[in-house]
């Protein structure tokens, strides 16, 4: 059986105007039906209509919201909806919400297109400026810090960060590089076989891993697992005022939080890249063996193909990528404002922006080194 409505609505002419009489409990249960009724019936002319709440025994917040909506509707349709009588119970609730016929809503400020573009530009320039300051600060303290009289982060922080950023990432990078080397060899061997040049798959894998795939894949994995962790850590500290507390105690937050990570990343990023290059070539060797190329021949071919320039550009790139990830993540973390949900937002942004920046810088590097 359908639940009986708590409120009843009737309409009559009281000699002066049409009056809508609401009886009973105007609450969360009955409010939608009452609103439907009023919406269906409210005239679209400039008529006067009375809303009689004299028989309302109970009014809750949903009821008040419905009244506000009805009045808004009336104004929209051009008729005059007036409260005629208000029962004591209804009056108490309305006063509690300071109901004034409409609940004040701050009109959302719609900004124009140009305003939006200008605003975005200003924010972007501001962000870029902050980033430059952060870069300057970070490298200043990284170089000057060890010789300064005041202290930075506690001893052992760099070791801790190195373990966090380096050895913890070792496994996943080694495994993924192995699989990428394997896939790359399989793909190229399949193509090269048509020319009977199977063995040159080794050259391709070695050069590709050392120059491009190694630094790039390592950077992307580090951005995903360590960059996000850095952004989340610093953002959380920002939100809980820990960063302010450090500043208030006379520490430079950049020196305390970012510089140990810079040392760590400077050490770990090239090492991880070497790991990924080696594992990639090993992956290639395994699949080549399955395709009939003896491992010794593959390794000989691969190492012979690598020029010093391939290796050094790869390592230089990896270093720059590591720094980019660190600075971007630290910047996102430090510019976090507000509450806990902002931490998640900053973390996501740090990963997206650092991968984006890494790929763009990689393009620039390719242009510099290959043209």
């Amino acid at each position, binding site marked *: 059986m359908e639940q009986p409505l708590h409120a009843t609505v009737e309409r009559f002419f009281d000699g002066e105007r049409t009056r809508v009489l609401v009886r009973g409990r105007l609450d969360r249960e009955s409010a939608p039906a009452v609103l439907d009724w009023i919406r269906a019936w409210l005239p679209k002319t400039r008529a006067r209509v*009375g809303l009689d709440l*004299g*028989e309302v025994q109970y009014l809750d917040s949903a009821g008040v919201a419905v009244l506000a909506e009805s009045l808004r509707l009336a104004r929209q349709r051009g008729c005059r909806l*007036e*409260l*005629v*009588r*208000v*029962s*004591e119970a209804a*009056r108490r609730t*309305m*006063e509690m919400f*300071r*109901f*004034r*016929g409409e609940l004040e809503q701050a009109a959302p400020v719609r900004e124009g297109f140009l305003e939006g573009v200008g605003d975005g530009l200003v924010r972007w320039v501001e962000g870029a400026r902050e980033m430059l300051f952060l870069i300057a600060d970070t490298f200043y303290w990284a170089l000057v810090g060890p010789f300064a009289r*005041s*202290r930075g982060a*506690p001893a052992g922080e760099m070791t801790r960060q190195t373990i966090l950023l380096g050895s913890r990432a070792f496994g996943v990078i080694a495994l993924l590089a192995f699989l990428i080397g394997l896939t790359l060899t399989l793909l190229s061997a399949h193509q090269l076989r048509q020319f009977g040049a199977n063995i040159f798959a080794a050259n391709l894998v070695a050069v590709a891993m050392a120059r491009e795939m190694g630094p790039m894949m390592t950077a992307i994995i580090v951005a995903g697992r360590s960059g996000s962790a850095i952004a989340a*850590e610093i953002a*959380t*500290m920002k939100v*809980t*005022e*820990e960063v*302010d*507390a*450090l*500043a*208030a*105690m*006379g*520490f*430079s937050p950049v020196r305390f939080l970012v510089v140990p990570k810079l040392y760590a990343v400077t050490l770990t990023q090239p090492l991880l890249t070497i790991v990924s290059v080696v594992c990639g070539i090993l992956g290639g060797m395994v699949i080549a063996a399955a395709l009939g190329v003896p491992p010794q021949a593959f390794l000989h071919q691969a190492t012979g193909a690598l020029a010093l320039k391939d290796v050094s550009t790869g390592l230089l790139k990896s270093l720059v990528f590591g720094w980019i990830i660190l600075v971007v993540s630290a910047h996102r973390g430090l510019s976090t404002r507000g509450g806990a949900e902002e931490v998640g937002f900053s973390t996501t942004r740090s990963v997206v922006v650092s991968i984006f920046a890494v790929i763009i810088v990689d393009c620039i590097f390719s242009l510099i080194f290959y043209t």
Partner: protein
Amino acid sequence: MSDLLLEIKNVSLGYGEEIVLGGVDLCVRRGELTVVAGPSGCGKSTLLKAAVGLLAPVSGSVRLFGVDLAGISEDRLSGLRSRVGLLFQGGALINSMTVAENVALPLNQFSRLPENVIDTLVRMKLGQVGLEKAYAKTPPELSGGMRKRAALARSLALDPELLICDEPSAGLDPVTAAGLDQLLLDLRSALNMTLLVVTHELGSIDAIADRVVVIDNGGLIFDGPLAQARRSDIPAVRDFFTRQPPRAEDRGKSMLERFLKTTGEVAS
């Protein structure tokens, strides 16, 4: 040396384009215990941040120990801050470090004391706030009140000349809160510490304040001795000290009456 530890002159503060506080003047003299009171969200914490240069004022000047904070070098600012203890509202302990390491942080930064002396000092400071047992714990393992006391121990580490506390007793049980008030008073009498305390606990204000500053509606509305604040006839100050609920806005009622004006009847 000047008697004025903190001099805030005609300062306006805000975040972005929003101004939270405007035209504030506030001086803190040596040895005084000033309480900053006012309703939640009126900008008390913002004022404290500006006092130590964590937030640059939109206009006006802040002088800490007689030095203008505008355009001051990081080194100089860091030196000034070492003479100020700041207790944050949420404690702001470094969560990745133990309580002891947190308390030792400022000691390591600003003193050349040997490790074991620092350790003794840390234990003394923790004893002062009744947290000897939390020595090796990390902040997330502590209760809210314990975190606050640990943070107080940290801000006391360097025996600062000026101790600034943001709601030290909020969220504490009455006994612990009273103990904390007593501790603040002891610090003042024993070490001649100057205190600037933000609180809206009436009990605390009565127990500790020499002088009360009341902030409301984006500005400073009262500055004077506690007794005078108690007798004040400024409505917002009187309401604060007598725990009056905010006045029902007369607007609300009159609007309701305006809707009723056609017939004017109110059924009962």
